[in-house]
Structures are given as structure tokens and as C-alpha cells.
């Protein structure tokens, strides 16, 4: 835990804080169907054209059921579209490597994965997918699934801020405006910047480089290797939105650890910042909409607190390294460098891992599987908490708001009133929907994992035994259900069983969460907005922040204590206190 790390952390948190308000203000006008932005002269014609093209009446708002149906239908159609693209990539253009069609279960898994904003990758991008598949089949989702997430969060915030309203906005308008005014311009800027750092952006066939030191591989068969294939492709455009939209699906199999995707320290720093940028601004948007800016900052502070706590543990664990390696003569000062890019080192790997799992991004610049047990526990726990620490774009905010609703309900009674959140009474229906959202995540993660760990198909892909193997499987289903997409790896997931069960975990985690949340939004919108007074439950200030963090840890984390104890925690003690080898 060196000084450069602390300086970088301060810079990271400071920049995030500084950007939250300006982008939050901008978001407020983007997310208002009639809002004015400085990009109107350029983009309004496109917006109008799109409305005319799809005959969207921008004034017509939807109730929550209509909103949910629109979102689901849109997701289903785009899912089928991507499935078709992957299955037909051999006959589609932009396939200089001549890749064949993707197998049915992998195509299903991948299409689901991108539609749900998960970007779980059972494939290696550069060895499986054509440029067309990457750009059209997948990057499309990087935009629209991110926009859908933001749209749901917006709908929920509208529910909170409206007085006795029937509608929560129009999904189609939200979808168009979020893409047009927010994601496209930001991605363009970031992509151009990334190109300046050396991220490639081309349609060239893969290059072949002659190795200076040819060598002989011994497995699976003895072969002499004299050339290396270097993958090419339109990466910058995909990398920008993969971060900004908290998608995380890398162009390359190595994701952000690959020098073409993440060439410089500055590119690395900005990519991490890009992950938190929109989720962080959404808290400002929340405060603005509920006319309680301090509440927005309180939510932001709770997120920052959880982020810093997670990061500190992970960073500390990675810096401390593995005592068994030290016993073999490895310098303890180096920390645990296994599975890390030397370019990034301990701090930037720990920070990236924390950020990518706090948010539902899932891009990685190091091998989470190779982290120390406690270092690896943090990304896993972050995902299991529901990725509410800034979280996915939109998904982080609505996940957090579910916890806020539960917090207000659990502790709100203690001020001697029926629990009330920013002027909305929290009643049976709201509790039911919030509890349902959390219950589904837990059911999916624990259910699938429990099934997998006692099944041959689940254990077949496992490269490690014992507690670490358990961590690998629970990480996979947590990541899929949480729509994160990062992998602990160490588990070969490209098998029909795992592809299919993981795909269902992704679908459950996305849509069975979104529907109750939209129902919550609709129900909240219907309620009267009660005037705030001295007697109202305080949703600002230190007490609230502590309470919220406490609820997230107790309600969210306690559920996973048993399985985490059997996985990373036991592994930690085995590593530090015994000589047992698995």
C-alpha cells in the first residue's frame, strides 16, 4: 500500500466527485423528455427523425406495465437479432478471419449476456467472432442495454418524485434520448481519446509477426512456433462504451489486460473513471429530482464508503501477498503479482477489480482467480451485494434504491411514523416488490451454485478443488445473476450446461429484477407526495449514511456469509495457517 496508490486513489475519488454534479445536471435535462441540452442543435433533428421513423409519440407516457412490456419486447427482439447475427456470422460481411458460425448454446449465452448488460464471455473475442458480430451483434447492446438500465432507474426516480401520477415516462423516448444525448457523445469522446493512447481501430485482417525467439511447445503436441498472430479490429469504439455503459465485454479475450485495449496508465485510469462516471452522476440526478440534493450526496457518500472499504481490503490483501510463496523465497515486498499485468501492478489491479465489480462492468485488467483469497473475496462480495456501489449504469441506482427503501422501512419506524421516503409512504406493496427484487438475486445465485457444486456438469469444468473451486463456481453465478460479466476464471464455462444455466441466471438477474422495480416505480408514482417536516425520516446526513451502509452489509452480505466462509475465508486461513494443498 504505497504512496503512489494513495495519491492515485485521491485523484480518482476527487475527479469522480468533481464530475458528478456537471454530468448529473446534464443528465437531468437528458432524462426529461422536453429537456434542453447544448447538443440540441445537432441532435434534435436526429431525435425527431427517430421518433418519426418508429412512430413514437414523445408526449405519450406509459404506466409501469406498458413500460415493462416495451422494455421486455425490445430486449427480446434485440436478443433474437444478436443470436441470429452470431449464428450467421460466416455469411455476414466483415469477417476477414473467416470465422464459422457460433455454436447454439454459446450464441444463446452470448446474446443473453449482452442483452442483459452482463457481457459474460464464454468465448474468446479475437478467436471466435467476426468484426461484424462484435460491432453490430454485440456493441449494439452495449449501448441499448446500458440505456435500458438508465431508463429503469429514471422511471424509479420519476416514481419517487411525482405526485399522484399514473405514468413513469415513455421507454422509447428514454431509450432514444439516453443513447443520443448521453452514451453516443461520451463514447465518441472517450473512443477518440483511447485511439490517441494507442487503442487500435481498424478492419484489417490479423497481423502475423515473426518471433525473435521461436520456441517449441510441448503440449498438446510438440510444435515449433515461429510466428505470432496479432489480432486487429475496431476496438476503441467498443472499449469506450464497454466502460461507459458498464458492459465490460472485451474485444479481446484478455479484456483490459490486453495492450491494445488498455495501452497506457492514463488509458487505464480513465477507463476506470468511465465505469463510475454515469452511475455516480445518477445519484446527483436522484437528489435533483426528489428536490433533496443532500440526499443524493448521502447516497453517493454511502457508495464511496463501501467502495473505499472494499478497495482497502483488496489492496491490502494483494500487497501482503501469499505467505507460502514468501516461504519459498519470493520477496514479500512485491505482494501478490500472480495473474497481474506488470504494467499495472498491485494498486491498479486491485482498484480495477474493485471498480469493475462495484459497478456491474466486468471488464478486467488482472486475473481475479489469482488474487489472494481475501483480495478475491472483495470482487465476489461486491457483486453479491447487488453491485450497488455506484453500480451498473442505472442498475446501480435502482439496486441501491431498493436497499434505501428497505433501510427506510426497517429503521423508519424508529422515528415513530409509518416509514416514508422522500415524501412517499413505504407500504406493503413497496416492501413486497423490494424484497422480491433481492430475493430473486439470492435465489438465482445460491440456487444455481448449489445445483452446480453437486453436479457432474458443474464440477467438470473446474480446474481447482476445495474452497477455491467453490469460489470459482459461486463467482460465475454471482457474476451472471448480477449482470457483471467478469469471471473468476479457472472454470471452463463454454459447455452446454454452464452456457445455458449461466444464461438463465443472467436473464433472471436482469428481468426478474427490473419488473418488480418498475412495479415499485409505478406504485410509488401513484402515491401522494407528503410534505417534509422535522418529523420525517431523515435521508441525509451521517446517521442515514451509516444506516444505509449497515443495512446493505447486514441484509445484503449476511446471506452470503456461509458460502463465503466455505470459499475464500477458509481458503485464507488455509493459506496463512496451514500447509494443506488442494
Amino acid at each position, binding site marked *: 500500500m504505497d504512496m503512489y496508490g494513495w495519491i492515485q486513489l485521491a485523484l480518482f475519488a476527487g475527479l469522480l466527485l468533481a464530475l458528478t454534479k456537471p454530468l448529473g445536471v446534464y443528465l437531468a435535462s437528458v432524462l426529461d423528455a422536453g429537456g434542453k441540452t447544448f447538443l440540441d442543435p445537432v441532435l434534435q433533428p436526429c431525435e425527431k427523425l427517430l421518433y418519426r421513423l418508429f412512430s413514437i409519440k414523445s408526449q405519450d407516457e406509459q404506466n409501469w406495465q406498458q413500460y415493462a412490456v416495451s422494455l421486455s419486447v425490445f430486449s427480446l427482439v434485440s436478443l433474437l437479432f444478436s443470436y441470429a447475427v452470431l449464428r450467421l456470422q460466416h455469411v455476414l460481411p466483415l469477417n476477414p478471419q473467416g470465422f464459422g458460425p457460433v455454436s447454439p448454446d454459446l450464441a444463446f449465452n452470448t446474446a443473453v449476456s449482452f442483452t442483459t448488460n452482463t457481457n459474460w464471455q464464454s468465448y474468446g473475442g479475437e478467436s471466435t467472432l467476426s468484426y461484424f458480430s462484435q460491432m453490430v451483434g454485440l456493441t449494439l447492446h452495449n449501448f441499448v442495454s446500458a440505456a435500458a438500465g438508465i431508463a429503469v432507474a429514471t422511471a424509479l426516480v420519476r416514481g419517487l418524485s411525482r405526485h399522484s401520477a399514473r405514468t413513469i415516462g415513455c421507454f422509447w423516448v428514454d431509450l432514444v434520448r439516453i443513447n443520443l444525448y448521453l452514451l453516443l457523445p461520451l463514447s465518441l469522446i472517450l473512443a477518440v481519446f483511447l485511439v490517441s493512447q494507442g487503442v487500435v481501430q481498424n478492419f484489417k485482417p490479423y497481423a502475423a509477426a515473426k518471433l525473435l525467439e521461436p520456441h517449441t511447445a510441448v503440449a498438446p503436441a510438440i510444435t515449433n512456433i515461429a510466428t505470432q498472430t496479432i489480432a486487429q479490429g475496431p476496438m476503441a469504439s467498443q472499449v469506450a462504451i464497454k466502460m461507459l455503459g458498464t458492459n465490460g465485454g472485451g474485444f479481446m479475450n484478455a479484456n483490459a489486460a490486453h495492450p491494445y485495449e488498455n495501452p497506457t496508465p492514463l488509458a487505464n485510469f480513465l477507463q476506470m473513471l468511465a465505469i463510475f462516471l454515469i452511475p455516480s452522476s445518477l445519484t446527483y440526478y436522484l437528489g435533483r429530482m426528489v428536490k433533496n440534493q443532500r440526499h443524493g450526496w448521502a447516497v453517493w457518500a454511502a457508495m464511496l464508503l463501501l467502495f473505499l472499504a472494499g478497495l482497502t481490503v483488496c489492496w491490502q490483501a494483494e500487497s501482503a501477498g501469499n505467505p507460502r510463496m514468501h516461504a519459498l523465497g519470493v520477496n514479500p515486498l512485491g505482494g501478490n503479482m500472480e495473474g497481474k499485468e506488470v504494467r499495472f501492478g498491485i494498486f491498479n489491479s486491485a482498484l480495477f477489480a474493485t471498480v469493475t465489480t462495484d459497478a456491474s462492468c466486468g471488464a478486467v485488467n488482472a486475473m481475479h482467480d489469482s488474487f489472494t483469497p481475501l483480495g478475491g473475496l472483495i470482487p465476489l462480495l461486491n457483486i453479491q451485494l447487488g453491485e450497488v456501489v455506484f453500480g451498473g449504469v442505472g442498475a446501480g441506482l435502482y439496486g441501491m434504491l431498493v436497499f434505501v427503501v428497505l433501510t427506510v422501512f426497517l429503521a423508519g419506524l*424508529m422515528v415513530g411514523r409509518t416509514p416514508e421516503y422522500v415524501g412517499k409512504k413505504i407500504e406493503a406493496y413497496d416492501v413486497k416488490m423490494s424484497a422480491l427484487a433481492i430475493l430473486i438475486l439470492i435465489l438465482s445465485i445460491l440456487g444455481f451454485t448449489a445445483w452446480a457444486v453437486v453436479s457432474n456438469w458443474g464440477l467438470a469444468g473446474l480446474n481447482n478443488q476445495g474452497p477455491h473451486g467453490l469460489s470459482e463456481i459461486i463467482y460465475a453465478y454471482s457474476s451472471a445473476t448480477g449482470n457483471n460479466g467478469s469471471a473468476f476464471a479457472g472454470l471452463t464455462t463454454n459447455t452446454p450446461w454452464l452456457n445455458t444455466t449461466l444464461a438463465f441466471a443472467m436473464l433472471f438477474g436482469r428481468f426478474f429484477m427490473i419488473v418488480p422495480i418498475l412495479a415499485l416505480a409505478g406504485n410509488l408514482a401513484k402515491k401522494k407526495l407528503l410534505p417534509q417536516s422535522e418529523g420525517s425520516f*431523515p435521508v441525509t446526513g451521517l446517521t442515514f449514511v451509516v444506516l444505509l451502509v449497515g443495512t446493505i452489509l447486514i441484509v445484503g452480505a449476511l446471506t452470503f456469509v456461509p458460502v463465503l*466462509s466455505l470459499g475464500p475465508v477458509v481458503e485464507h486461513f488455509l493459506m496463512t495457517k496451514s500447509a494443506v494443498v488442494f
Partner: protein
Amino acid sequence: MAAKARSLFDTAIMLPAVVDSFRKLNPFSMLKNPVMFVTEVGAGITTAVLFIRSGDEPVGFILQIALWLWFTVLFANFAEAMAEGRGKAQANELRKTRTKTLANRIHENGDIEQVPADQLRKNNMVIISAGEVIPADGEIIEGVATVDESAITGESAPVIREAGGDRSAVTGGTRVLSDRIKVVVTANPGESFLDRMINLVEGAKRQKTPNEIALTILLSALTIIFLVVIMSLKFFGLYSGMSFSITVLVALLVCLIPTTIGGLLSAIGIAGIDRLVQKNVLAMSGRAVEAAGDVDVLLLDKTGTITLGDRQATEFIPAEGVTMQELASAAQLASLADETPEGRSIVVLAKQHGLRGRPIAELPHAQFQPFTAQTRMSGVDIDGRKIRKGAASAVCDFIGKAFPLDVQGALNRISQSGGTPLVVVDGEKALGVIHLKDIVKGGLKDRFDRFRAMGIKTVMITGDNRLTAAAIAAEAGVDDFVAEAKPEDKLALIRREQAEGHLVAMTGDGTNDAPALAQSDVGVAMNTGTQAAKEAGNMVDLDSNPTKLLEIVEIGKQMLITRGALTTFSIANDVAKYFAIIPAMLIGVFPVIAPLNIMGLQSASSAVLSAVIFNALIIIALIPLALRGVQFRPVGAVVMLRRNLLIYGLGGLVVPFAGIKIIDILVNAFHFV
């Protein structure tokens, strides 16, 4: 019923409660409480394990776990039975008032027949004479009587009930002390006010309140979550090469699900109603008690609530050229037929000026003009004189011209001081002014300040003019006032506040209060009030003390806080229980995790057993808190939250660590495992 605060451990309540806790084990009745139902099923499963035991788990251990799980369920049942028992004790006292009485029913043809009271039906007429017990709830349609209502209110001083006006209601079970009244019955047997009350305190037909329903949903969700956790844990154990025993898994499950709040939830609700009854307030539903905690606007009648009873005449101020004696005499004449307390106080004041009271019978030629809300004047036409007294504006309209300057001066002076001036006129001549004074009750200002800190707005409502109202409002420290209010203004005000999202509480007694009582979120009718008012409100104050509204709000809040505090405590407990049980479960296969046993519990079985025992005992330990309610201080939400969070949140984290450790020491000291 003269409710007294009962000792928490009254054996007369405790013993039947113990029996009841066993009766409540019936799984069908447990179903309404999902958390405890799961606990009971868990207890059943561990008991079954005793008989179909496999593996090497010691019988003694399984037996103890099973026993303590049953205790957990029994303790929760006991809490509920205690609360119900206390309610039943109240109800029994209420029942005592309904001794078998005979009623003199008047037939349509005018005959009087004696029938048992329980044969009376709505709209029957009865005659009740001095010494008789009033057989049913009803309304006096003829006569006036003094009534001993101590059976209901505990107040020994008799009260006057009379036909017409707002004090015409009589309650079954009270006794007529003097005179004879004719009463129309307003409730069928079993539907009377007392019957509804008995049902409510007995908890037999208790409906869950909205908030309780929401909380039950959350507790059920947590229970399902932990069920999933425990079931999946079995599989994770299999993967890790451990076969967790059913006993231990059930023990962990019961420890994790929120049994503390689940077990005490209904007791808290019943105790809330019970506390109201002890204050002599009957709530018609638990929902009303809950709403009382949510109220943020209190609509307070000036008279009786803010000021002491009625205005009293304190001073005669004669006009120029009028003697004190003339004014006093005219004022007395004008007030003879004015049965309002103000009217009577004028007669009393006149007496102090040497005028003896003149019975109306002595003035056969006099034509009395009674006071009405519309004319706002009373008076007498006697010997060609038209003497009137009343509010300045009304009298001004009557004489059709402005008052002399000195009278106007006196009027202004009195109004500005918060008093009420009445002008006395003889024909067109203004004789002078009577000074009526309001006396604000002591301690109210302080109380209103505390309410303000809690975010509750107080609005005083009065028929007085703005000046008077403002002066009293300032003296009493209310936030707002409505002056010159007519009865329908109350309703309009409530609707307006509600449209803005406020919850409004009010008290009322008159028939014209009924619409407002019905519209308000918490409507407290005075027991002395009319039947219409009582039916419209959702609470009745047996003492007819409007100031009690403040206490009702406090009790409502206290009930909600108790529920929240125990929920927080219950959930915070889980942390310690994990630290007790998880290491115990894993240590067999992974001895390296010993450092996780931070409490230093002596063995795996004693750790599990201690956690289960703690989980059961904490319910018993918290019963007094659930029944009494947490300590309540009227402070702002921020302070209240921080304080309760420190006590129940932090306490909930820390207490079980200590508790489980102590139990573990005892369990080992006595070699239970």
C-alpha cells in the same frame, strides 16, 4: 372500566397466558405468523430427528436443541398471550358494567313493559329513572339527569346529560343518579360501543394494521431468504466434504430468521391498544392507533382543549352615562335564559354585583331569546325593553348603528388582550361591555413546542374573531389558528390539509363535528358527545378531555417506534449468531478457521446450543419492552433516529456477543454438552 396500569407480571394474567402459549402451538393458528411457523416446523423436525437419528450426533444435544426451539415458539406465544391477557383483563372489567339489567321499554302505543336489557333493539325507547342502570347505548330525547359514569371513566363526579345539544349521549352500564330521562337506543346488543371495545382489547378479531402487514411481508421475505441460504448450505457442505446435520442446520436457520421481532410483533400491537385503554381512550381499530403516530396536523378546538373549559365573565364595563348596576342588571336579564356556560358565568358575575338570581318563573311576561349559533345573541323582551347581549358584530347588526367611541374602545381593548367582549344593548342603546376571559391550560406551550420539534403542526380552531384568536394562539403557542370558524370550516380545513398530504387528527363532540371527525385521519370523539360524533370518529375518549389528543399521538408513535426498534435489534443480532455458529460448523473439517471463533466458545455443540438458547431467551427478555413500549421522548426525527439506532442497532450488534458468551460458559459449567 377505570383502567389501572397493571403490573407486568400480574400472576392472574401470567398463568392463563402460560396455558394459552401451549394452545397457540396449533400450526393452523401459527400460519398467520410465518416466522414463528417456520420455527415451529424446525422444532418439529429436530424432534423427529431424535427418533430417526442417524450419524453420531449425541441425543442430549439434539434433545436440548429441540427443547429450546420449542421454547422459542412458546415464548413468542407467551408474549402474545400476555398482551391478550392484559387486554382480556380490561375487557372483563368492561363486562362487569353489563350486569343483567331490566329496561323499561316504551311500546309504540305508549305502554311500558319490562324487558331484559339484551332484548333491546335499535330505535327502542326506554325510560330510566334515578337509581337505575342505563341498559344500552342511547341518546336522551327527553329530560335531563345526572349520571354516574365512573364505571366507564373511573371519574367519580357525576355528569349532567340532557336532551338536545352535544351532551345527549348515554352509555350502557352507567347509572342515573337523579331525575328521569327518556332514551332512544342507538345500538343493538353486541354492537354497542362496549362490545366493540371488548372485541378489540381481547384481540379475538384483531386485524393486522397496514404497517404490521408490510412488516410481516418483509419478515417473511427474510425468512425465505434464510431458508434458501440454509438449504444451499447443505449442498456447499457436501461439496466441501462436510455433512451438516439437520439439527445444526435448523438451529442456524432459526437463529437467523427474525424470531425476536416475529415473536413480539403482535404483542406490540395489542399492547399499543392496551396502553390507550389505560389512558381511557377506546380505539375502534389498531389502524387508528397507527395513524395516530403518523398524524402531522392537530386540529384543536380552542375551548376545552387549549383553554380551560369555558370563558368566564370577569368584568362589566359600563358605557358613558350608564351605571354599573344598570349594566349588571341588563346583562343578567339577557343571560337568564342563556344556558351556555358563558351565560351562566354572567349571572354569577351579576350576583357578585349584588343582584340576586331571578328564576325565569318570576318573569312571566318576559319573552326570552335563546342563544343560537346563527344569531350569536341572546336576550329578553320584557316590559317593552329589548335587551340583547352578544358578539359585537351581531349586536351591531341588531341595533343597526355603530357603538359609541368609549364602548368601541373597551371592545378593542378586550379583544387585543385575548378576551371576548360581549356588548349589552337595551333597544338601540349600548349599555356596556362584558369581558369574557379564556384561561389557557398550563404546560401547553411547552408541549406544543415539543410537537413542533417532531414535525407536528398544531392548528387552533375557534369561533372567536381574529384578534381574540391571535392573542390566545400566541399565548398557547400553537402554529396556526382559524378564527371565526363555522363547523363546516373544520371539514374544509381538514380536506385542504389532507390534499397537501398531511394526516390530520382532531377532537369533537357535537353532531356538527361528525363530518369533520369522519374525514379526519384520527377523530377522537368525546364520550360526552353525541352518538353521531362517536360513530364518526375512530376513537372515543372516556374522560372527554380534548387535550388527550396529544397523548394519543404519543402512544401511536411509541408503538411504531417499539416495532422499529425491535426489528432493528432482531436483524442486527444475526451478526453475532453467525460468528457463533459458522465457525462451529466448519471447525471439524477446517480446524484452521479457529480464529473466527472470536467469542472463544468452548465447543462446536455448545456454540450452537448457546446461540439457540440466546435466541429463545431474548424473546422473554424483551416481552416487558414490547408490552410497555420503548421510552418515548418528543424530539425531532434526526435525534430520535440517532438515539434509537445507538440503543437498538448498536445494542443489537453487541448484546448477543455478550449473551451467547455467558450462556456458553453456563452451558459448559453445567455440562449440558
